[in-house]
């Protein structure tokens, strides 16, 4: 094949094959460029950066929804992009929708809570969209190098978002802490990648999967296992799974609530895709003595992380006075619940668990964004972000109270909310994995289920504290609270509607998640 032919083929592959499927990312990139150019040319005086960012993220979300729709209509199709560095998968597109929607929601909210002023607006939205872009790439990474690069892409702007309030010492401290932890995690991931690539001679997830499944690994199974563990540590850092969670309470406390809310959903959901890809890469049954970790054993490891996260998250949340710290611990425990879906998949190859994971993710995005939005609005109204700051707010501002109650109920996992349906889906998958899996995984799966059950009850105390403060405690703030801005009301109602809708009209979304992971529905 001559060079010209190769180039022609590459151009064809890129222009006709990859770029159309890469459209959601392209829209985000274009928006970022537009924001930066607007700053230079001064056209951001005409159209505010918030508007540009909102239109951009909403368009990206719309494009991704259209892709999802097309995939749903045409059946499951995974297409490799850019000669196999990325791939356009059903699950990936689903996560892109969530990430872009979360970005649009956050932009909408920050437009009224006045977080970035006119001067630093473009910076703020550039960083926000940078995280979104990173999350989108992470969700479609098909190559270990790409995984590392994409996770960096979504982390680095995140550090800036956390430290965005320049004057606040807490903010700076949080950003530094996050940065140090994050760099450590990236280093670990890179090391893991080099171990795997060095042993197997490839870093493409598909190829690694083929090599490992063939069971012909001559030596170096232990090195590959170590590599997988290092990668898992990096992903667990992004998911804030115990014991890689230390950064998140500090980072969330220092970050403005809007940014913390966004960072607690978009990167997490994307990181789950990587975790699932790691499981898919591993063999279901490794030969004894090869030193290679197989999926059931990886599942047991994840079960341990999951159980530890939900328990420590709940216990930690219970003693917090600061709402954002409380929610940080809450998101640690929810990372544990969400991981149950991956555990079920790893332990027994149960793809229903992944469907539950996707469903729960959607509900989780709505619930967390909603509750962080409540915190953001309360901060604007009362200047406080602690549990005491919301005392008595529920009766004063019914919208805030209602949104907080519905989101809290969803996080506890009670119907009729999406949190309940998501929880029941991952619980069911974990139970089934224990039932159908090998004898070795059964106690892990059922033990995890029991632990999750206990934690559901513990969670009651965590989330009811917010509800209780809002309704049962007397209001002692200023007599004239500012009005809740109509856009804020819209945001809160949007989150609320999403939480309830995912809990009542379940079938439309569950059909998509089932199809995305390849579970046939009767």
């Amino acid at each position: 094949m001559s060079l010209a032919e190769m180039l022609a083929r590459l151009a064809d592959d890129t222009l006709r094959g990859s770029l159309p499927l890469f459209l959601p990312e392209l829209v985000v990139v274009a928006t970022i460029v537009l924001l930066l150019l607007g700053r230079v040319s001064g056209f951001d005086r005409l159209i505010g950066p918030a508007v540009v960012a909102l239109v951009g993220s909403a368009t990206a979300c719309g494009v991704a929804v259209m892709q999802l729709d097309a995939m749903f209509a045409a059946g499951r199709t995974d297409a490799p992009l850019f000669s196999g560095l990325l791939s356009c998968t059903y699950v990936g597109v689903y996560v892109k929708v969530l990430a872009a929607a979360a970005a649009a929601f956050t932009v909408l909210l920050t437009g009224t809570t006045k977080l970035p002023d006119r001067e630093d607006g473009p910076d703020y939205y550039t960083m926000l969209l940078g995280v979104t872009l990173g999350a989108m790439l992470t969700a479609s990474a098909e190559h270990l190098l790409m995984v590392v690069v994409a996770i960096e892409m979504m982390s680095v702007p995140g550090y800036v978002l956390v430290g965005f309030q320049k004057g606040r010492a807490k903010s700076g401290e949080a950003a530094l802490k996050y940065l140090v932890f994050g760099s450590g995690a990236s280093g670990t991931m890179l090391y893991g990648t080099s171990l795997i690539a060095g042993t197997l001679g490839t870093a493409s997830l598909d190829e690694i999967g083929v090599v490992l499944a063939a069971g012909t690994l001559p030596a170096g199974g232990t090195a590959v296992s170590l590599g997988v563990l290092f990668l898992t540590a990096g992903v667990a850092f992004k998911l804030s799974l115990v014991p890689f969670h230390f950064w998140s309470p500090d980072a969330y406390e220092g970050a403005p609530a809007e940014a913390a809310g966004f960072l607690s959903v978009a990167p997490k959901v994307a990181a789950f895709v990587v975790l699932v890809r790691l499981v898919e890469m591993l063999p279901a049954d490794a030969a004894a003595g090869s030193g290679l970790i197989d999926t059931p054993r990886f599942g047991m490891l994840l079960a341990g992380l999951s159980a530890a996260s939900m328990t420590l998250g709940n216990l930690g949340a219970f003693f917090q006075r600061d709402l954002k710290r409380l929610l940080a611990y809450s998101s640690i425990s929810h990372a544990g619940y969400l991981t149950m879906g991956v555990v079920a998949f790893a332990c027994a190859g149960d793809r229903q668990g992944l469907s539950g994971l996707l469903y729960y993710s959607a509900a989780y995005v709505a619930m967390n964004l909603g509750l962080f939005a409540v915190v953001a609005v309360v901060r604007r109204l009362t200047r406080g972000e602690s549990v005491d700051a919301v005392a008595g707010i529920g009766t004063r501002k019914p919208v805030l109270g209602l949104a907080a109650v519905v989101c809290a109920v969803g996080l506890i996992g009670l119907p009729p909310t999406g949190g309940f349906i998501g929880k029941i889906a991952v619980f069911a998958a974990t139970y089934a994995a224990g039932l159908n899996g090998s004898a070795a995984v059964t106690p892990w799966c059922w033990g995890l289920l029991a632990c999750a059950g206990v934690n559901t009850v513990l969670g009651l105390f965590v989330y009811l504290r917010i509800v209780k403060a809002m309704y049962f405690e007397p209001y002692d703030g200023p007599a004239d609270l500012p009005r809740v801005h109509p856009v804020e009301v819209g945001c809160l109602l949007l989150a609320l509607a999403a939480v309830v809708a995912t809990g009542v009209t379940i079938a439309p979304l569950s059909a998509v998640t089932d199809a995305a992971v390849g579970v046939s529905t009767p």
Partner: protein
Amino acid sequence: MTDAALLSLVVFLPALSAGAIVAFDGENRGAIRRFANLTTLAVVGLLFGLVLPRYLAQSPDEAGYRLVVDLPWVPGWGIGYRLGLDGLSLPLLLLTGVVSHLAMWASAGITKQTKGYLILFLLLETGMLGSFVALDFLLFYVFFEVMLLPMYFLIGLWGGPRKEYAAIKFFLYTLVGSVLMLIVMLMAYAGSSGVAGGATFDLPTLTAIGSGRVDTVEFSGKVQCWAFAMLLIAFLIKLPAVPFHTWLPDAHVEAPTPVSMILAGVLLKVGGYGLLRIAYPLFPLGAAYFADVVVWLGVVSILYGAFVALAQTDFKRLVAYSSVSHMGYVLLGIGIWSPAAADTAAWQMGMNGAVFQMIGHGITSVGMFFLVGVLYDRVKHRDMREMGGLLTVMPRYGGLSIGIFFAAMGLPGLCGFWGEVFPVLAAWSFSPWATVLAATGVILTAGYMLFAVQRIYLGPRYIGPRGEQLVPMTASEKWIAGLVMTAAVVFGVYPRPVFDVAGPAVARITADAQTGVETAEVRKVARAENEATQ
């Protein structure tokens, strides 16, 4: 109107009204209250005017249900919008409608944040009605949980001095039960994956599996024991039975009067209903295994509740513990099953008695909590040591009270009688000792009831504070107490409506459970033979 539309309307009318109330002006209490009152009345009207005649006109389907609704909800996961009624749920559904209306009527004294109160009240009613008509395990669970949050707020915001403690305790206990039920639900779901159409939450299908009528699928003995044990705890918490009852005195005492009426009148019955609708039909092997536990917990509840009631000085606490004791009869009646004896006549009698006791206790406890409320509204305390002579000060109140107390006591001719005597009589063939002890409970009941009557209504005069506030009952108070008293007399003299309706359902549940145990035995033998031949 189709059955689907009718049942959905009954269930969701209160919730829709709650939504409509949001649009009302919070200051216009009268209008909101009239609207809410009208809603609960409309539910009663729909229940007696449309649902009851239609139920009587239809013949049951093969699973024994009428007005069956089966619409897809989440077809991929085997979840359906399935509703239906049988002889077990119909009486409880009607009771719920009536008690809700009476409680709404009794809510006239709620002046704090009336709008929020009524919204939560109506949401609670939707949860209760839904629990009794749901024929899908997941749907039942959803309605079961929907009751929690409104109840939490109703106790926690409108309750007495220790309301927050009582509210969180209620929520916590029930949530523990719910989580156990959730796990059982997943066990049943995963266990049913072999039926045609895949794993399902459909209760009639799951019942068919439990009773061994499906050839391809069965719940193994181990699964059944675990599942039944977990469900038992879940529903014993709700019922409540010793040792899971400690939330009840706190919740009852702190809750405002109408909420206490609902708690005692309807919510406790969800526990008994859950045992009869889910635990026994789905997991008969587990039920057979734990038969002794159920019966003896029932006996202990009867005696313990009665003894503790005997020692109370707080009027409302006394009524609360009497509920524990009375619900013990329900548990006793449900539990007396000896699978070894193929004849289920005694069990049927006990279970009929249990269903009747749920209705009877629904009537009397609602009445008693209302009467406590009437007195508390006037003198603002409930200490029985400071009372006395009320029969002379408020003769009509005293008379109705004594009547309702006697009904609760189980005097023949009043509605408490049948529910106590049937389980106790039927228990003989299960265990004479249980019968003897449960019968002792009847005497203790008479003891604490008469002791209370003596301290409150008889005696020379009222010696507590605010004696001048002891004014006669208002017209609506008279109506509510009068209606309760009438129902107590009617069902005491003529209990047949309940027995006639519940009888077939009870016969079915007992026969199914017996078949389930026998089929499991046959299959076990067949499997052993199979292995032997190989």
